[in-house]
Structure formats: structure tokens, C-alpha cells
């Protein structure tokens, strides 16, 4: 009987769950996942979440990104309270959304709004890979479309920072249709002669890569960002050949003519400002 008691206890030893791992508060120090360099978290944040030693670009939350780009106090958010429904009645989907809302303190995988970047007015959308891997369902598609419509109405450039694993499986065909929806809006924006800049950050794959992310007037990317249509594993299984080390990185895309420029995070605001200036100069 005593033996049973111990056996039972062993069986129920706590293993930290995925959720708990995410909930670990950020410590005083942070170790770079690439080069193992140990930094003060405060210093890392001051350095735009770029490793001081190897220049690894940490993922940024939507608001960290916006904060790093726009003029202080200039950001007005759109559709902050739009949330997903469960159109296919997918078991567990609403719970997953709720848990991601708690975890990320945002309502969906994209934040949209208008702002100024060094006094150049823009409409901006920033995806957040912490929320359901940045996947695109109805809300992401609708928020981006509405942001583009605002840009059309206000005759402003539209800038998007993508970070997404692709379409959101749990919303099925509705997710796929968001690719078409954002495209019809971008076409209208483009036909008005307005500027669209796409900046691909880690990761930009699947349905997001195969829609708005790839059709900017300028396609930029952050260093080493994973960008591609199909997943590496799927490709390896399909073609049974070795893939190069840098396969589907920003640098790989640049080499194959798919990008205009790879821009390190420190130069992002300045480069965007230059592009915006050149474009506003033409109209003046």
C-alpha cells in the first residue's frame, strides 16, 4: 500500500506545460538563442531586441514594433476590439484565442492604425507572431482590409510588417478567402497611385507570403527572416533533396531576386523615412 502511494506520486510529477513556459516572467538577464551571449534584458530592449553580439533579431510584439518606428504619440489604433468567431465550430478554437489574448494582451494577430514616421503620415499594420503564430483568419484579413481602405480614403501610404505562419486552419476556407479580400483592397489602393511597402519579418510563410506580403511596391525584409511558400519539411519530403543552409531566408530571397532590400532593424525607421520622403517629394 505504501509502495502504491509512492508510485502514484511519481506518476503525477509536474511537467511544465507549454503555457507555463510562456508565462515565465522575463528575467534580469537574457541569453541569445543564436550565439548564447548573455545580456541585460533592459539593454537588449534598448537595442531594439537585437543581440549586441551576433545581431540576432528577436521577434517583436506589434506594439514594440510600432514604438520603434512611429513618432511618439502619433499612433491611433483601428478596430482594436474586433475579435474572431468560430465559424466552423472548431473544438477548442475559442479557448485558444482566449488564452492568446491573455498571453499577448492584444485581441488578434495584427494591430492596425495610422501614425507618422518622422512626420510622414502612414497607415500601418503590424502582425504579431505570438498570437496564434500570426496566422490569418477573418479578423486579420478584415483589419488589414479596413486599414487599406483607410489609406485609400486618406490617400496615405500603407506599410505592413508581416509575421505569420500562414492561413489559420481553424477558420478553413474563410481564412483562404482573406488572401483574396486583402488583394482586392490592395489593387484599389494601387490603382489610386498610392504607395504600399511590405516588410517581411520572421516568419512570413504560407498564405500571407502568397498574398499581400509579396506584392509591395517595395518588398523589404529583416535579416535572416524565414520567408517562403511551403514549409521546409514538406519540401524535403516532396523532392527528397538537400536544401541549402540559407534556404528561405531573407538573404536567399534577395539572391533570387524576390526582395528589394534586406534592412537591419536599426536602419528600418531611417530607410522607411527615406522612401516616404522620395514619394512625398514627387507630389509636392
Amino acid at each position, binding site marked *: 500500500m505504501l509502495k502504491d502511494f509512492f508510485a502514484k506520486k511519481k506518476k503525477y510529477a509536474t511537467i511544465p506545460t507549454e503555457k507555463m513556459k510562456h508565462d515565465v516572467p522575463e528575467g534580469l538577464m537574457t541569453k541569445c538563442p543564436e550565439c548564447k551571449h548573455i545580456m541585460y534584458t533592459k539593454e537588449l530592449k534598448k537595442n531594439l531586441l537585437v543581440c549586441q553580439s551576433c545581431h540576432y533579431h528577436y521577434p517583436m510584439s506589434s506594439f514594440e514594433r510600432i514604438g520603434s518606428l512611429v513618432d511618439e504619440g502619433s499612433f491611433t489604433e483601428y478596430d482594436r476590439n474586433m475579435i*474572431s468567431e468560430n465559424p466552423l465550430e472548431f473544438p477548442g478554437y475559442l479557448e485558444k484565442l482566449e488564452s492568446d489574448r491573455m498571453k499577448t494582451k492584444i485581441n488578434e494577430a495584427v494591430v492596425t492604425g495610422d501614425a507618422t514616421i518622422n512626420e510622414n503620415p502612414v497607415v500601418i499594420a503590424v502582425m504579431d507572431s505570438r498570437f496564434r503564430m500570426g496566422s490569418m483568419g477573418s479578423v486579420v484579413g478584415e483589419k488589414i482590409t479596413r486599414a487599406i481602405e483607410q489609406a485609400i480614403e486618406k490617400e496615405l501610404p500603407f506599410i505592413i510588417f508581416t509575421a505569420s505562419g500562414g492561413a489559420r486552419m481553424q477558420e478553413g*476556407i474563410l481564412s483562404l478567402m482573406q488572401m483574396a479580400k486583402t488583394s482586392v483592397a490592395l489593387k484599389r489602393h494601387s490603382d489610386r497611385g498610392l504607395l504600399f511597402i511590405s516588410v517581411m519579418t520572421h516568419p512570413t510563410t504560407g498564405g500571407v507570403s502568397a498574398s499581400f*506580403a*509579396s506584392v509591395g511596391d517595395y518588398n523589404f525584409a529583416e535579416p535572416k527572416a524565414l520567408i517562403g511558400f511551403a514549409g521546409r519539411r514538406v519540401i524535403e519530403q516532396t523532392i527528397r533533396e538537400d536544401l541549402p543552409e540559407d534556404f528561405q531566408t531573407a538573404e536567399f530571397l534577395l539572391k533570387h531576386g524576390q526582395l528589394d532590400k534586406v534592412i537591419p532593424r536599426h536602419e528600418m525607421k531611417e530607410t522607411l523615412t527615406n522612401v516616404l520622403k522620395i514619394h512625398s517629394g514627387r507630389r509636392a
Partner: protein
Amino acid sequence: MVGELEFERPITELKKKIAELKSFMDEKGIDLTDEITSLEERLSALQNDTYENMSAWDRVQVARHPERPTTLDYISYLFKDFIELHGDRLYGEDEAIVGGIGMFHDQPVTVIGQQRGRDTKENIRRNFGMPHPEGYRKALRLMKQAEKFSRPVICLMDTKGAFPGKSAEERGQSEAIARNLVEMAGLHVPIICIVIGEGASGGALGIGVGNHVHMLENSWYSVISPEGAASILWKDSTKAKLAAESMKITAPDLKELGIIDEMIPEVKGGAHHDPEEQAKRIEAVIQSSLEELMNLSEEELVEQRYEKYKNMGEFTFVNDSIAVK
């Protein structure tokens, strides 16, 4: 009986029994007419019951039937004087997408479709109907040409997906599909899209942004194949059947969700039982779509596409007090 599917097995067995009885009657000269008639009645009831209650997975099987009519099969029934046109003028020719010009009744049209092979050899040549970027770019070239000459575009969708390979990534599979979505959004001529078999994800959508989108009754259209969904959602690709049932991928489902305009009924048991009759049913739908869309101006066509896609999606709002932040 060609390529019988699992869910049709009781039908096959009953047919076999009837055939046996008939030959027995002929051989022995015994009159079994009553028995045969009663079995034939049972067969007809069984067929009705089976084909009217097909599960999503049954339909996926029909959509993948090796003898299911392909794009080129339908082209031969639907378009007179068809001339196939090749190449994207940029890199190469992709035989996973066919395209060309022809006459639909008295109307010149451009036709584009994904093309599976009808046997192994052809499947290798056509990459099993999985296009590379040059296929999508050829499609776009033909659409722009259609726009120049004011011809409606008819797209027949049938693919397991855009090809997931190294060469496709290097040449910009994402950009090729994305570009088509944007350009199809703005095309100044009517676009009619019909899913005739498998409609897998971005690979299908790359020729699928239309004024009207229709689906054959036993085709499927989804953000991902049932196998892919099963492996992502449950880490188990053998749960494809479950994924097919839960992801709403059939024509009746998509009609109900408001994603497609018309579900085109199939001949009993599936299009492969009578391709010519199936082509006639498709012809009628194209005809009525064209009649409707030819009345719209260039601007109205673009506007109609805008409104159509703008309305797709389900979402709600929470009020400030319970929203996060």
C-alpha cells in the same frame, strides 16, 4: 465497372449479383425475371441512398477518382476551335496549367485550368497538376491578353496545391500566386471560376479570384488538403477523414457558407460516370453566368469582385470594458 470506390462497394456487389443471375438465366433457360426485377429495384434504391448521402470524405474520393474528367476533357466538350497557348515568356512552360483561346457558343473566351495527368506518364509531365510559378505567370499573361481583347476568362480549378519544391521557392511561388490575386481583382473582363476536382489552398486560389465562383458537387475547396489539416491540427495525417468532415470543404458546405455562387450537380455517382452529360451541366452554368456578367461595365465588374470578397469572413466586436488592455 471502372475504379469503384470504397463507399460504393455494396452497389458493386449487388450489380455483380444481378449480372450473375442474368447469365444463369440465359445459360439454364430458367425464368428469374421476378427475382432480377426485385434486385434491380433494390439496386436503384441503394444507389439513391448512397449517392444522396455522401460524406465529405466520400466526395474527396470522387474528386480524386483517376477517371474524373480533367480540364482538357471539359475543354473538348465546351469550347469550339480551342487553341492551346504555351509559356510564361519569363522562364518556361508549365504543363500543370493549360490555357488557350476558343469559342463558347458565339463568344470568344480565354480558358485556363490546372491539368492533372490521366496516366502516370502524363502525370509526371504535368507534375500531378501542381503548378510552378511559371504556370501562374502563364495564366496571368493569358488573362492580361484576354483583357486587351475584351474576352471573358474561364478558370477551371483542379489541383492538390501549388508545387512545394526548391525550384518553385527560388522562382517566387509566393509572389506568382500573390500577383495573380491582385491582378485578377482588377481585371476589366468577367472572370468565371469553377472548381472541377480538388481545390487546394493558394495553389487553387491563384487562378480562383472571380466574379462568379462555382463548384462541382463532388469537388472540394479548402485552405489545406484534408491530410495536411490532419497533420497540422492533430499531428496525424491518417485523421484526414475526420479533417474532411470538420473543415467544411464540400460544395454544399461552401454554398451554405456563401463562398461559392452555384453548386453544379453531378451525374449520379460522380462526373466520371458520364463526362459528356457533366459537361452539359457545366455549360448551362457558364452560359447563365456569362449572360449576367456581360451586362456589367468594366468598373462594375471590378466593383462586384470587390464587394464579393470584402464580405467574406466572420468576426465580432467586444466592448471596451471587457477587451484586453
